[in-house]
């Protein structure tokens, strides 16, 4: 049984009206007939430009937003009719929601542990374990409002795993973290998948992170799924690579590249050309024939970020 199955999920926000009844904002469809599944132990990325419908989708998957139509089933059970039972098995962390600021870290986790039905022993064990795991055990007795953004995020992650969930929804979990801590979190996610078979639905604006962690990526644009593939396969849809050259005659080189109609940027003496992967050899040959020599060369193959930039441009 798949941990999550979403069928024809649609969210149309009703028209917003002023006090006098005139329409302020017309109805708006944020998520349009979206269907997907998350397999057991799978890490599914949810990508898309701002306003694509990622957060709206996640909110519906957590029951904090009512869908207009469609079905959500966790572990084969309808979410709307088994909400409380299902939510005990779902973890959630987001960089954009808060915890009560006056409560200490331990108190907050105590409260959430109780809300998830953990007994005293389970709470004590798991709180200790996750605070250590996320490197915030020394902050256990500090008020949550006194933590930095990164520390709060790690406490939120500890909260998300307290109930030993079978599926975890993470909305930009590493947004406020230092690179080394973010790397630890990514490793933690991969470990949980390997050891406990936990499934993840993951949103992030860090494309390198998505490539590293996610098995599969859903790309949303204007509320619709426009791609569903592995990060590598999505990156391969972008044919343009970036060729960087340190050339002896920059003016001559840029004239030559302009004539070919290729987009380029100049960074000091460095020339960056956006070019089809397959045409790189030909470009280099042409430059050489024109008497332009280069002393440094680097080629950056298309990455998920390039794909993201491409679809974001399309969205605009």
């Amino acid at each position, binding site marked *: 049984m798949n941990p999550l199955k979403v069928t024809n999920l649609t969210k149309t*926000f*009703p028209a917003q009206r002023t006090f006098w009844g005139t329409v302020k904002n017309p109805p708006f469809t944020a998520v349009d007939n979206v269907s997907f599944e998350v397999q057991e132990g799978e890490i599914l990325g949810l990508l898309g430009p701002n306003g694509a419908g990622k*957060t*709206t989708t996640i*909110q519906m998957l*957590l*029951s*904090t*937003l*009512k869908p207009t139509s469609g079905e959500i089933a966790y572990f084969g059970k309808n979410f709307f009719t088994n*909400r*409380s*039972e299902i*939510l*005990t098995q*779902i973890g*959630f962390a*987001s960089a954009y*929601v*808060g*915890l*009560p*600021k*006056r*409560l*200490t870290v331990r*108190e907050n986790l*105590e*409260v*959430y542990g*109780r*809300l*998830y*039905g953990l007994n005293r022993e389970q709470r004590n064990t798991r709180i200790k374990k996750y605070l250590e795991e996320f490197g915030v055990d020394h902050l256990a007795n500090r*008020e949550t409002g006194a933590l930095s953004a990164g520390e709060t995020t790690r406490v*939120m992650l500890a*909260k998300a795993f307290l109930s030993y969930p079978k599926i975890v929804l993470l909305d930009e979990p590493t947004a406020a973290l230092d690179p080394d801590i973010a790397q630890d979190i990514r490793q933690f996610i991969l470990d949980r998948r390997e050891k406990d078979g936990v499934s993840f639905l993951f949103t992030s604006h860090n494309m390198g992170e998505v490539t590293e962690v996610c098995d599969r990526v859903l790309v949303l644009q204007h509320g619709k799924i426009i791609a569903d593939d592995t990060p590598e396969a999505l990156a391969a849809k972008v044919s343009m690579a970036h060729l960087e050259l340190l050339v002896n005659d920059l003016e001559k080189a840029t004239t030559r590249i302009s004539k070919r109609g290729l987009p380029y940027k100049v960074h000091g003496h460095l020339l960056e050309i956006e070019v089809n992967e397959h045409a790189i050899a030909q470009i280099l040959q042409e430059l050489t024939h024109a008497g332009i020599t280069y002393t440094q060369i680097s080629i950056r193959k298309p990455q998920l970020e390039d794909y993201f930039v491409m679809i974001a441009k399309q969205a605009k």
Partner: protein
Amino acid sequence: MVDKNRIYALTTRYIYQLSHDRWHLADMFYWPFFDLTAMGYMATWVSRDAGSSWLSSIIGCMVLWQLVVQTNFVVSKNALLELISANVLNLFTTPIQIREWLTACFILSAIAGCTVLLFCSLIAKALFGYNLLSLGWLLVPVVINLYLSGIALGTFVTALLFYYGIRAQTATYILGWIFGLIGGSYYPADVLPLPFWLIARSIPLSYAFDVVRYHHLGTTFIWHNLLAAAILNTLYLLLATSLVRRLFSRTLRYGLARLTY
């Protein structure tokens, strides 16, 4: 079905909050003390020639009014706390249900209400020689009625907060005092002009406070007042809880996230 563990969890959440936030203790002790003392001395002066029964009726109502203020405030303040800390989204991604949240608030209201009532009755005894227990067995139905009024009002404010979000926070502070003006706590509803009298008579508070006055002034009509207060309280509490559920459900059409901005 409600889950008692989740209710207990929410209760501890607000007790933790109170233990860290000493300013919230001011709500429980400073304002009741200020209100009771100021009104008590004014009543002492005004009723100097009228007799001790008048003073008792005013002080008795003042002490019991603090119960209404506190029980109302505890329910609505807890909703506001969740909105201000942006915890409301986190909270409702756990298995809790709105009725469990309300139940926890009602339990906390009862605890806070009893604490404030005890505190105010001690102040009244020490400063004005008034004994709340002089109400005898009537104290029980009166306190229950006033508690129900307080939580019904708090639940109504919660409904507004869960629909309008932080923008409605003013309601948390002012609605209770509006009911103080027309609820018959400071003076009987009979002294109000007809339109306000009609409103006062549709509010259970005015019947409950009349019972206190009647008892101290030695007049009758106690039973039907208690009955009217009980019926209206039950009705308003049912309406308020149903309004919370209805408006919360409407909010889910737009998403809980919108409440926090």
